[in-house]
């Protein structure tokens, strides 16, 4: 009857799919009625709390072990605080994870298999090792303190080494757990999120140990130095992460709305800038270090909560997902 309209248009970008190459056409912003293209996670405050506690516990064990190996007698209270914090986190953290399961009575099914393609499976076995070793280390520590026999402190020192290795993995695997999903905000942080979680674990562990050493212990200059370094590194990595989000146009779920308040004022302000400012003032009072430590802990939790909630919001934005899954983003067929 008449000339079909489609013939006059340019070659369809997805027409005649070649076997050799992916068609690359600029993404025009199409969505299906703005409906999400992927499902967001069910993670909320329990998982954010676990990220916070697990990281804190893991890094506490690392700090305690290094303090014990390097400084021995001088940092007894630091070592003790670190080992008990590690045990506390290794007990409360998994409890939070089990409560968060939608069928909690089957929690032990996590131990049916070990799967290296699943960060959750890697984390399960890491957490089991970390918890067991942390319990042994803390037990040896308390026996040593009670009996005043150097033998037990020696045992704690050497079980502490594998415990610290497991603690280091515990601190960073949670970042990989988020990044190994299809959620744009998390996935583009594949290399940065684990580093950020590691640095946040170190800064919050330092803060918790500063508080846990008790009000009668003398100030710990090593912990103060460490707080400055870890918090500085954390701030640097968070800036890198945000640059990555912005480059891909994926930042808005975490830079707008209430999540942005938690991320900026909480995670970066309270958690990083306030402690760095307190440490920079050279006011070396107990009150100053307590303020810095409390701010670090509050910010450390808010950072994790903002990342979890921001990721859930990111998954609900089809345009973010499609922007990230364009062929020109260097994704190869195989």
């Amino acid at each position, binding site marked *: 009857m008449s000339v079909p309209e489609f013939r006059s248009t340019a070659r369809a970008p997805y027409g005649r799919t070649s076997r050799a190459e992916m*068609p690359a056409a600029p993404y025009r912003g199409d969505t299906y009625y703005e409906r999400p293209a992927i499902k967001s996670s069910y993670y909320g405050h329990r998982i954010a709390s676990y990220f916070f506690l697990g990281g804190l516990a893991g890094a506490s064990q690392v700090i305690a072990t290094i303090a014990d190996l390097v400084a021995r007698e001088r940092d007894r209270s630091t070592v003790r605080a670190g080992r008990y914090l590690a045990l506390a986190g290794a007990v409360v953290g998994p409890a939070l994870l089990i409560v968060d399961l939608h069928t909690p009575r089957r929690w032990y099914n996590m131990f049916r298999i070990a799967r290296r393609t699943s960060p959750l499976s890697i984390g399960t076995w890491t957490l089991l090792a970390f918890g067991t070793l942390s319990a042994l280390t803390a037990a040896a520590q308390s026996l040593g303190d009670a009996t005043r026999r150097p033998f037990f402190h020696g045992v704690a020192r050497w079980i502490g080494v594998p415990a610290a290795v497991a603690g280091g993995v515990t601190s960073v695997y949670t970042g990989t757990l988020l990044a190994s999903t299809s959620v744009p905000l998390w996935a583009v942080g594949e290399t940065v999120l684990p580093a950020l979680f590691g640095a946040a674990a170190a800064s919050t562990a330092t803060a918790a140990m500063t508080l846990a050493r008790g009000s009668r212990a003398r100030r710990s200059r090593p912990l103060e130095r460490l707080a400055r370094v870890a918090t500085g590194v954390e701030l640097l990595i968070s800036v890198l992460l945000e640059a990555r989000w912005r480059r891909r146009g994926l930042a808005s779920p975490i830079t707008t709305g209430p999540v942005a308040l938690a991320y900026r004022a909480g995670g970066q302000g309270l958690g990083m800038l306030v402690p760095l400012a307190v440490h920079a003032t050279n006011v070396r009072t107990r009150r100053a270090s307590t303020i810095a430590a409390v701010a670090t802990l509050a910010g450390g939790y808010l950072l994790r909560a903002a990342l979890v909630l921001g990721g859930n919001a990111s998954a609900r934005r089809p345009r973010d997902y499609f922007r990230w899954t364009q062929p020109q983003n260097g994704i190869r067929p195989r």
Partner: protein
Amino acid sequence: MIVAGERYGFFTDTTLCIGCKACEVACKEWNTLPADAIGITGDSYDNTGALSATTWRHVSFVERLREDGGARPTTMPPYQSHWLMMSDVCKHCARAGCLEACPTGAIFRTEFDTVVVQQDVCNGCGYCVPACPFGVVDLNPHDGKAHKCTLCYDRLKGGLEPACAKACPTESIRFGPLDELDRRARRRVDALHALGVDKAYLYGVPDAPGATGGIERLNAFFLLTERPEVYNLPAAPTLPSRRIARGFVTGLATMAALAVAMVAAFRE
């Protein structure tokens, strides 16, 4: 004959779909899935919305006007729209993000090369949900387990094709061995191109859109006539597990650097 050890899948030809939703209904009936919230979405004829724990086939409706372009090979009178309809389903990926993410082994690959959640193993951790690159698998809040299309594992075991393919009146949904489906799909694309439907292409066959980033291929693949995003599909999805190794490298390197800082801080 449906035999164990052979690879099976769906070929969903969207140019044949008439939007009758018989597949949705057949799936719900066979798998005794409850109705979802009844309501009007306002999104054309699509009141189903999306795949979920209780909806394993979802017919999407895209109403296009002439200005939007499209493959309708006749002129259209004013106010007339033409349809893009697609019956969406779990893709039963050759390398499946959900299966790789599952920490309990509840999600497994069957003898028909399909991907199924074992309900007696799943503990509802929910990690498969954000892992899926296509937003398919979901948790059911009522029973606390993950659910998705099983490609009618029980019917295959009994030598029957899946309920949706059986019910499809236009054979838009075809079930069969993958090599046979692939041949059929390529013939169909060639035939459509010969008819002038230039835009027809396959989504999910090896080296095509959808089968990217380590996913290799989709055992349930599609013939589309518009870019994937129009059907709510990603053009170049990736397998989530690809990001694990590099994450551990930078994460553990950061921890190692901080450990050096700790040694320096505690020395003296």
